[in-house]
């Protein structure tokens, strides 16, 4: 086994993802299969190979910067329009600090 149900629960916690008991056991099975396939990469020696962190970049370092001029952006109402809960121009969430 590459991954146990215990590890699946730990990773689900990191990902803020609720999984049912059934999903957890299925996930352990699926990830195990995928991780076993991924092991194939260990056949390769990558000593001295640079990681490809940038796909393509065809311009000078500062070419994507613009003048610091204020441009219109989404107004408050538009930005909140898809919020499940909002009020007083803010996103509302469950209380996180007890008085």
């Amino acid at each position, binding site marked *: 086994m590459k*991954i146990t149900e215990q*590890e*699946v629960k730990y*990773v*689900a916690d*990191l*990902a*803020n*993802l*609720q*999984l*049912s008991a059934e*999903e957890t056991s299925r*996930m352990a099975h*699926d*990830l195990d*299969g*995928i*991780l076993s*396939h*991924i*092991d*194939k*990469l260990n*056949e*390769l020696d*990558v000593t001295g*190979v*640079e*990681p*490809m*962190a940038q*796909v*393509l*970049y*065809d*311009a000078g370092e500062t*070419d*994507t910067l*613009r003048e610091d001029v204020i441009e219109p952006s*989404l107004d408050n109402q*538009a*930005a909140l*329009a*898809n*919020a*499940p*809960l909002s009020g007083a121009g803010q*996103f509302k*969430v*469950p209380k*996180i600090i007890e008085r």
Partner: protein
Amino acid sequence: MDIAKLTIAGIQEGLRTRQFSAAELTEEALAFARGENPKTNAYLTFSEERARQSAAAVDEKLSRGETPGALAGVPIAVKDVIVTKGLRTTCGSRMLEHFIPPYDATAVQRLEAAGGVILGKANCDEFAMGSSNENSAYGPVRNPVALDRVPGGSSGGSAAVVAQGTAVVSLGSDTGGSIRQPASFCGVVGVTPTYGRVSRYGLVAFASSLDHIGPFARNVEDAAVLLQTIAGRDPKDATSAFAPVADYRESLGKDVRGLRVGLPKEYFAHLDSESGDQIHKGVELLKRQGCEIVDISLPHTDYAVACYYIICTAEASANLARYDGVRYTKRSAQAKTLQDMYRMTRGEGFGAECKRRIMLGTYVLSSGYYDAYYLKAQKVRSLIARDFQQAFTQVDALVTPVSPFPAFKLGEKLDDPIQMYLSDIYTITGDLAGIPCMSVPCGSTAEGLPVGLQILTRHFDESGMFRLASAFEQAGGFTL
């Protein structure tokens, strides 16, 4: 006019000679699309009002004697992972069932500015994750060529509407083959341009170092015209390229004598025999057109799927973190605490494949595993990109199959994620290297299932790719 067989050039001619107005064409296209859609479930949302407004604007320009734009009156579908202002954009997910974007993607803006008429939003795998369109929360798309089969994925709806004739062209997105594989399954043209060639502003992010927007069409010229319209630098996407956009129409109808075309041997392993026969016929045809066929090797091909599923899931786990119950419409009704709101909203909102990828991505990035997985995958990605660089010192283009097999039956691979992932074995490499690649029809199997031929060229050499595709089309390659 046969509404299901229109081309961009045919529409321009029809408008110019007053055979029909943009408004008339749009009404007919909408009625046809609505009528046919129950067969395939390819459209998720229709945008009648918006389409009528676009058509009216085209007719007004025409009546004033102005040039109406390269896509004037052209009925278009847009994959539902590309945002449209005021028009529901679900990403095929329950998470965004009621999401109404506050802005338009740059690609959408550009095609509407060119007179394009958006009929609606095309179904897709949830957050573009899948190879069969069976991961959509709104039901699978059926392949118009064979209704018991999948259209491919993730841009299954975008491919199906073009094959079915319920749109003339469409926009899709490609991260590991999501344009080319469905194009091949449905028998249409699908283009994944160079990384950065088309702005991703407004493309809902899946894996940012791999995501592309690209066109679907029924012929090479329409695909070239659509790409021409949406390509080019966009200040709103810092990864969009500055390189000037060539006139792709100039590469059409040219001869290909003396062009060196590479056949990478690794792409002919795992290949189903009927698909292989078709591809070999396609290669023979190119040879008869005067191409010089060169056997080459891309030695790291077999590592692409493993490399891809580390990088794309790592990036996806970060990109999908934003769906937390705060900003994007869905919030679990059960949650009392903030932590539960995050966990339960995501548990309820995401489907099985999204959860699998978020989990794998979180795992490979988690403490202690970064070097073994993510960093290693990025190094292997360099090796795969280098394979292509070396190949392009010997040849002008590469030709391969798009998929190891033609469209499979609905449900056939649903329970086996690895089998599903391996169906992208020939398309993933192009995305990892960031090079332009496309699928063109290359006849069909005895059962009538379309086979696709993939053409890959150097970074920013879309012109070379279209030149070869166009010569192949004109020599009868599509119906081999």
